[in-house]
């Protein structure tokens, strides 16, 4: 098996017609290269998107109101309405299986123009009213200071947490914003923290450009009464968030005289469902990748088989000599098959290496781009070791397959016929 004669023969067979060997090998090379790069690209997309949402509580749902879509109980279609804090208490009392429930206010009235002033600096930012529990659902990381707490809520303190971009435009780099005041829509708030979002899921504008106030402070300071603009909810372990979502929607519709079938009046996003959809999407992408990759690889392998047939034909005389000198069928078959396996594995290995190399390169470039802060939905286009090993195994099998038909053909050669000069 490992006799030098054998490798000598393989080397000779493959280098006799270098261009042909190269072109044949290229088919296999391209197949595996495509497979690796496409799988890697698919993984990159997957990592990127999952990275944007992965810290999000998967078992969460978000609900917000819009104008009604259907007339109901004497109300006209197109009515403006809002959820309110009594809804929240009612839900807390009547729905089982809720882990966190966080109402949220958006400062729509305060948006527009430069609503934030500090000395001679002004800026236009989003304003949100939050409960402490909100960050359990949609996590943030505190760069400086702290997040809103229960005492802020209870005492309706005039404090705020600001996004990174707010800090950037309202404060000098050398300044510590904690303890300083911002005038937001005419009311002064003391900055208690600076946050950086962990996820890229945003409601009512980007979190970097938002000023977060305690929910109760915002209700009173801007005259929102008992309005609630968004409900975020997560389910307890073992409880499907979809069922919570349905229960809450039904309760709210009932309490506000909304038609039970009105899909437009109250909207909701269920992260569980979103994840399922995404998983389906990525499964689809990877199936497609494998079909295309395997198809290309198969074309390459058939090319190898074809060329091996030609090589056998060309070497009829040589194989005839070997058989006349006492080479057993095993020797002849293993020779041809080994040649084919060497060709495919070598080409495949190069394809594998270059594919992985390209992915590494892209990875590095992306990492540099991403370090600027603002993320693209694309990260770590890599391929798993098992996948790479499987590809290599497929290659060796493919080589065996590609070599077996020509090897059989080689056995049918009749030495004397091959050797006579007729």
């Amino acid at each position, binding site marked *: 098996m490992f*006799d*030098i*004669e054998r490798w*000598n*023969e393989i080397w*000779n067979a493959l280098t006799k017609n270098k261009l042909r060997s190269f072109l044949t090998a290229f088919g296999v090379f391209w197949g595996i290269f495509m497979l690796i790069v496409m799988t890697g690209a698919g993984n990159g997309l997957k990592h990127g998107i999952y990275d944007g949402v992965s810290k999000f509580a998967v078992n969460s749902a978000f609900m917000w109101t819009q104008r009604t879509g259907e007339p109901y109980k004497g109300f006209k279609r197109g009515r403006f309405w809002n959820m309110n804090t009594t809804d929240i208490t009612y839900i807390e009392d009547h729905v089982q299986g809720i882990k966190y429930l966080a109402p949220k206010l958006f400062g729509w009235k305060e948006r527009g123009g430069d609503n934030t002033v500090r000395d001679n600096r002004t800026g236009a930012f989003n304003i949100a009213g939050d409960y402490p529990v909100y960050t359990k659902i949609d996590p943030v990381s505190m760069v400086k200071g702290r997040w809103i707490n229960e005492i802020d809520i209870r005492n309706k303190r005039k404090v705020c947490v600001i996004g990174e971009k707010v800090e950037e435009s309202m404060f000098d780099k050398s300044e510590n914003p904690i303890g300083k005041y911002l005038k937001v829509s005419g009311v002064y708030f003391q900055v208690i923290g600076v946050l950086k979002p962990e996820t890229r899921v945003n409601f009512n504008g980007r979190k970097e450009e938002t000023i977060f106030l305690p929910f109760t402070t915002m209700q009173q300071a801007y005259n929102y009464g008992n309005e609630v603009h968004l409900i975020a909810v997560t389910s307890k372990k073992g409880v499907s968030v979809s069922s919570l979502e349905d229960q809450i929607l039904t309760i709210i519709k009932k309490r506000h005289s909304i038609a039970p079938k009105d899909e437009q009046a109250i909207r909701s996003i269920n992260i569980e469902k979103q994840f399922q959809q995404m998983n389906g999407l990525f499964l689809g992408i990877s199936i497609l990748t494998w079909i295309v990759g395997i198809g290309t690889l198969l074309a390459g392998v058939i090319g190898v088989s074809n060329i091996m047939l030609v090589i056998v034909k060309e070497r009829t*005389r*040589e194989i*005839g*000599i*070997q*058989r*006349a*000198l*006492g*080479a*057993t*069928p*095993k*020797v002849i078959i293993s020779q041809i098959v080994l040649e084919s396996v060497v060709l495919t594995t070598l080409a495949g290995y190069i394809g594998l290496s270059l594919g992985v190399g390209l992915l590494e390169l892209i990875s590095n470039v992306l990492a540099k781009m991403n370090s600027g802060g603002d993320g693209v939905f694309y990260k770590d286009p890599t391929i798993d070791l098992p996948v790479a090993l499987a590809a290599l195994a497929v290659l060796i099998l493919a080589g065996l397959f590609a070599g077996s038909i020509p090897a059989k053909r080689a*056995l049918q050669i*009749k*030495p*004397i*016929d091959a*050797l*006579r*000069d*007729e």
Partner: protein
Amino acid sequence: MIQINNLHKSYVTGNNSLHVLKGLNLEIEEGEFVSIMGSSGSGKSTLLNILGILDNYDEGAYSLDGHLMQDMNETQAARTRNKMIGFIFQSFNLISFKNAMENVALPLYYKGISRKKRNQMAMEFLEKLGLKEWAHHMPNELSGGQRQRVAIARALISKPRIILADEPTGALDTQTSYEVMEMLKQINDEGITVIIVTHEYDIAAMTQKIIRLKDGVIEEIIKNGDLKSFQAQYNRNINKPEHHV
């Protein structure tokens, strides 16, 4: 050594069947030096194929060294060939990317002998045939006579009982042909049965027994004593245009 009784062989291609050997009987003793002659289509190469266990036959019996050569699978046939038979070909058929020594050592490779040992043995045989200095030359750097001597060394290295030579002098000039025949004669003197296929009368005349094939059967066998009359026939034939096979 070789016993052939009522041997039949047909080739089937599509709907056509070509009956090549039609009940051939032949006996060759150990140590004989035999030539097989015959025009194109007489069944020479088919007979050679069967003698060399490179092809099967349809009917009859072929015994080599007392063993019936029948229903062998390709592996057994290859082993028997490797052990019993040395082949010499018209166009030498050396493997172009192996040097003289490696070519000679090739049958031993199929026997599974280590590289060091087989190359050593190959050198001995090359030395015997006066080719020691050429051992590391590639076939295309050798003359026709040298190539055929390398091929003879290759045929001899596995110490066969029979040498089958298919037109061994067909590609050589007269003088080199005679040298090669002299060499085969020496091999024969060591007790190895030598069978050559040729269409050259002067070459055939150097053997001890001439078997002439015609239409798949033996037309005549010319033995040692009759060689004189064969000589006369050869002189007669030389004036006619020869059919090259």
